[in-house]
């Protein structure tokens, strides 16, 4: 465009110069032609207005008149009577000579010396004759011979004069003709010049016209191109001027907005396609608008707005507005796209994704439920196998049982994996942090793996560097991580060596950076597999696949747990040389605890305890039988009830030291049965009741405790876990505490969860902030200990109303801080006081300090 303008500028300059030259030529030519025309006109006029008489005629007539005069003279000499005729002829001749004289004077004929002589002769004759003619007849008659003699002398003169005049006239005519020819020639030349100039002008003008029409064509072509661009654009294009009036509206716009171009041009944008709700804002924005720099609409890229169709319905649009120069001021060009479809498609996509997620969750949930359901029968199998080993077996049978046991063990591991994954994915509360020593933890895991490793000739080595720090963290999770990595390494490194390295390093004042590497000398993992080994259900093809069993969830669990701890896990592997997994964590430093943190493996409680009377309420005969067998083996006395209803009935008639209550049973479930027992006046109404369940989610545990249970035993029941419960009950009995109360538990999630409601605590912590929360906890502890002392005093004094009010007071605070176990017991005491059941109330009050002690510890854990 800029070059084109230069060219056309040059062109117009050249044009102007050329035009000037042509103009000068034409004007000059015209002026010359004009002058010549004037001259020629004069000549023509001269020719037309004959300035002289017919000289030839007159000169010829001179001769005639001279002859007539001579004849008249001859007649007069013969007959004097004809004197008058002579006089007349003389006058005629005289007149003729005078006429010629006038004519020759006009023509300067006299310049010719010959003619002058002739004329002079004629005049001389007249001069001499006139007096004689005018004299009397007598005198004239006498003079006649004299006149005759003069005439004789003059006889040749008129003829000579006539001839001379004719000659002069001829040359004069020639000269005149030559002049005219010359003039015509000049005129022709000038005319030719002017004609040439005109041709040139015409050519120039034609060229200019062509150039002009070419340019006009180019402009109209550009215009048409713009038009067709506008028309063809898939986006709607709406142009408005600085008054907000629509000046252009393309075909797509017609389609999108339903307005025809001819009916919308000239109307205000704000009165047509801007929805009523936005019109005011639009108008204000328009008034405010000064430049695109300050506008949040113009030249701001794509915006999503709402527009209105001609029929009044509103729809979402994507619009990009830019400012341009219009005819009268700024104009605004909007490129608009109807995004109704996109929005709908996006919503559909979102819906599809949500549906898929829901389906995934449902599937995952179904998976979890299935796993639960599988664990129950597995429990039966494992327990039965366990019992079987107590009986004398043949070697062959022992071998089979061992196989069955290890297979069950593996199956249980898988189920637990699935459940763990489900729990991690469902975003359940992370376990509370506890202080532990990573080095000890790793050693313990290594120790536990050595027997398995030894079976396939694999050695497990640990190497530690850095300080043996004590950190605060989820020891269970870390233990699981190390266990999974180690068992994986061992699995794929038969007859090899697995090295676990830990490295601790202080990171700042309060934190410890922990790096754990598990390196094997196994077959390695190919690069493409390395990328996906942390995904779920991934098993790597290998020659050992047949021997290496696994769900493929091990590393998936590792990844989730490490991520949960805000750590990082990576893998490096060289084919046929081995694989190394690196776990790095940054954990807060903890005060050294006197308890060995690494004592993760539950210590086997081998101390003998007094035989207990145990009631097993269990609807599943196999599970019941297994449980009975376990208890009998430990030397306890067992009774059995096959559902809740029967359980309540049996418990009312007999005092049991312990009731193991299945939760889901027909007729009456375990929770309901527990409530019934507690509410009855039966003999076992205060016996500790433990839930036996595969469902041990925190909210369920809460429900158990609320119903009056003391704790729970997870299915499948392991003899160790069962033994622990039996020991607790026996210990409580030795201390004379026969009331139902939660056992003083290990530092486990479950028991903590039974004592305190972590949900409530976290809510409060979130509400107050950690500092104030800690302060509140402290003041709660102080209050609790105060009130407990008062309760003790009231109980000692047997002051039931005081006991009731104190219990009520503390119950309130317990509710706030989620101390559910204490809260429940206090409520029970309050209820007993109300019922005036002094014995029960005092019994319950006696158990409070213990519950408080456990609660306090749980709260301290939660605090960190």
């Amino acid at each position, binding site marked *: 465009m800029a070059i084109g303008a230069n060219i056309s500028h040059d062109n117009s300059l050249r044009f102007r110069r050329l035009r000037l030259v042509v103009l000068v030529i034409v004007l000059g030519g015209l002026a010359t032609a004009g002058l010549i025309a004037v001259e020629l006109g004069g000549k023509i006029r001269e020719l037309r207005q004959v300035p002289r008489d*017919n000289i030839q005629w007159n000169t010829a007539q001179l001769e005639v008149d001279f002859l007539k005069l001579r004849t008249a003279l001859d007649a007069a000499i013969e007959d004097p009577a004809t004197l008058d005729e002579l006089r007349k002829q003389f006058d005629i001749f005289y007149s003729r000579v005078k006429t010629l004289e006038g004519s020759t004077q006009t023509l300067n004929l006299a310049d010719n010396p010959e003619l002058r002589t002739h004329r002079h002769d004629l005049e001389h004759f007249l001069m001499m004759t006139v007096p004689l003619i005018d004299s009397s007849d007598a005198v004239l008659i006498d003079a006649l011979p004299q006149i005759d003699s003069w005439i004789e002398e003059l006889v040749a003169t008129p003829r000579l004069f006539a001839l001379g005049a004719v000659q002069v006239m001829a040359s004069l005519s020639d000269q005149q003709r030559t002049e005219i020819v010359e003039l015509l020639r000049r005129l022709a030349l000038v005319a030719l010049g002017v004609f040439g100039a005109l041709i040139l002008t015409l050519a120039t003008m034609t060229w200019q016209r062509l150039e002009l029409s070419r340019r006009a064509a180019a402009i109209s072509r550009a215009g048409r191109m713009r038009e067709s661009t506008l028309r063809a654009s898939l986006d709607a294009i709406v142009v408005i001027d600085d008054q907000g009036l629509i000046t252009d509206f393309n075909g797509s716009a017609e389609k999108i907005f339903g307005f025809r171009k001819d009916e919308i041009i000239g109307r205000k944008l704000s009165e047509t396609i801007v929805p009523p709700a936005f019109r005011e804002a639009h108008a204000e924005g328009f008034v405010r608008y000064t430049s695109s720099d300050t506008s949040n609409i113009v030249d701001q890229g794509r915006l999503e707005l709402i527009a209105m169709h001609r029929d009044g319905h509103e729809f979402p649009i994507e619009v990009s507005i830019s400012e341009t120069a219009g005819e009268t001021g700024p104009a605004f060009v909007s490129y608009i796209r109807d995004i109704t479809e996109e929005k709908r498609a996006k919503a559909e996509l979102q819906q599809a994704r949500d549906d898929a997620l829901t389906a995934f969750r449902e599937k995952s949930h179904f998976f979890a439920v299935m796993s639960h359901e599988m664990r129950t029968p597995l429990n039966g199998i494992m327990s039965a196998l366990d019992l079987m080993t107590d009986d004398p077996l043949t070697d062959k049978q022992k071998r089979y049982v061992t196989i069955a046991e290890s297979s069950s063990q593996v199956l249980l591991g898988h189920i637990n994996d699935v459940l763990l994954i489900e729990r991690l994915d469902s975003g359940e509360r992370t376990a509370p942090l506890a202080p532990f020593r990573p080095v000890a933890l790793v050693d313990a895991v290594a120790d536990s793996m050595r027997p398995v490793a030894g079976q396939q000739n694999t050695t497990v080595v640990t190497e530690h560097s850095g300080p043996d720090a004590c950190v605060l963290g989820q020891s269970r999770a870390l233990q699981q991580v190390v266990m999974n990595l180690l068992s994986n390494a061992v699995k794929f490194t038969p007859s090899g060596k697995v090295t676990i390295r830990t490295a601790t390093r202080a990171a700042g004042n309060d934190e410890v950076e922990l790096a754990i590497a598990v390196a094997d000398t196994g077959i390695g993992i190919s690069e493409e597999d390395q990328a996906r080994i942390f995904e779920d259900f991934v098993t790597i093809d290998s020659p050992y696949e047949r021997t290496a069993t696994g769900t493929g969830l091990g590393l998936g669990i590792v990844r989730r747990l490490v991520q949960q701890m805000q750590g990082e896990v990576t893998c490096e592997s060289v084919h046929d040389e081995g694989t190394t997994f690196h776990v790095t964590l940054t954990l807060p430093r903890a005060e050294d605890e006197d308890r060995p943190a690494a004592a993760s493996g539950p210590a086997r409680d081998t101390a003998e305890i007094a035989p207990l009377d145990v009631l097993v309420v269990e609807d599943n005969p196999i599970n019941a039988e297994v449980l009975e067998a376990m208890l009998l083996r430990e030397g306890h006395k067992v009774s059995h009830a096959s559902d809740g209803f029967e359980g309540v009935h049996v418990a009312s008639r007999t005092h049991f030291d312990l009731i193991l209550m299945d939760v889901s049973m027909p007729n009456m479930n375990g929770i309901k049965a527990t409530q019934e027992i507690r509410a009855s006046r039966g003999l076992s109404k205060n016996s500790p009741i433990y839930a036996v369940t595969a469902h041990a989610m925190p909210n369920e545990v809460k429900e158990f405790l609320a119903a009056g249970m003391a704790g729970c035993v997870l299915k499948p029941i392991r003899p160790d876990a069962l033994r622990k419960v039996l020991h607790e009950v026996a210990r409580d009995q030795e201390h004379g505490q026969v009331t139902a109360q939660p056992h003083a538990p290990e530092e486990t999630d479950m028991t903590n969860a039974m004592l305190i409601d972590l949900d409530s605590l976290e809510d409060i912590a979130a509400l107050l902030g950690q500092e104030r929360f800690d302060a509140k906890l402290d003041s709660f502890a102080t209050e609790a200990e105060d009130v407990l002392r008062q309760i003790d005093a009231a109980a000692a004094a047997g002051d039931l109303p005081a006991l009731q009010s104190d219990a009520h007071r503390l119950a309130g605070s317990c509710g706030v801080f989620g101390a559910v176990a204490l809260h429940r017991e206090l409520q029970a005491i309050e209820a007993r006081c109300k019922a005036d059941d002094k014995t029960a109330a005092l019994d319950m009050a006696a158990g409070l300090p213990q519950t408080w002690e456990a609660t306090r510890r749980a709260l301290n854990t939660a605090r960190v």
Partner: protein
Amino acid sequence: MTLTLRPPSTMAAMLLLTLAFFATTALSETLKAPEGEVILTVTGNVHVTNAMDKAEFDLEMLEALPATEFTTSTIWTAGEQTYTGVELKTFLDSLEATGTMIDATAINDYSVEIPISDAVEGGPILAYKSDGAYMSRRDKGPIWLIYPYDQNADYRSETIYSRSIWQLDRLNVK
């Protein structure tokens, strides 16, 4: 008119009577006879006469007619001169001349045909005076038909020059 409702014979009689009346009237327009030398004789279609079918004029009679005067140069004379005479139109009108052409003939027997259409107001005159003096025969007199050459360019043509007859003494209207 008196012609209405008359028998044909009566009508013819009436017509003859009427013609006779007009003829008498025409004859009554007779010119007086010239007393001096006759210098111009008009023949042909002229209805006012003073001789047998012709009108003869002496200088006095010409001068009695309304005179016209203009100043012009001529190709035959040196310088401008004022000519006095009777306009050809006035002259012919006075003779009730009818026709299209006039044969004009001079003393020297020069003769030329002049269309009657030349006889217009501001047109040629039968001049008898030049610069106030009567023109003699030697000076193209006594009568010279002069056109106002200087006043009208159309009169500066060879045709007009040929019609500018001097020493004029005869006119025949046809």
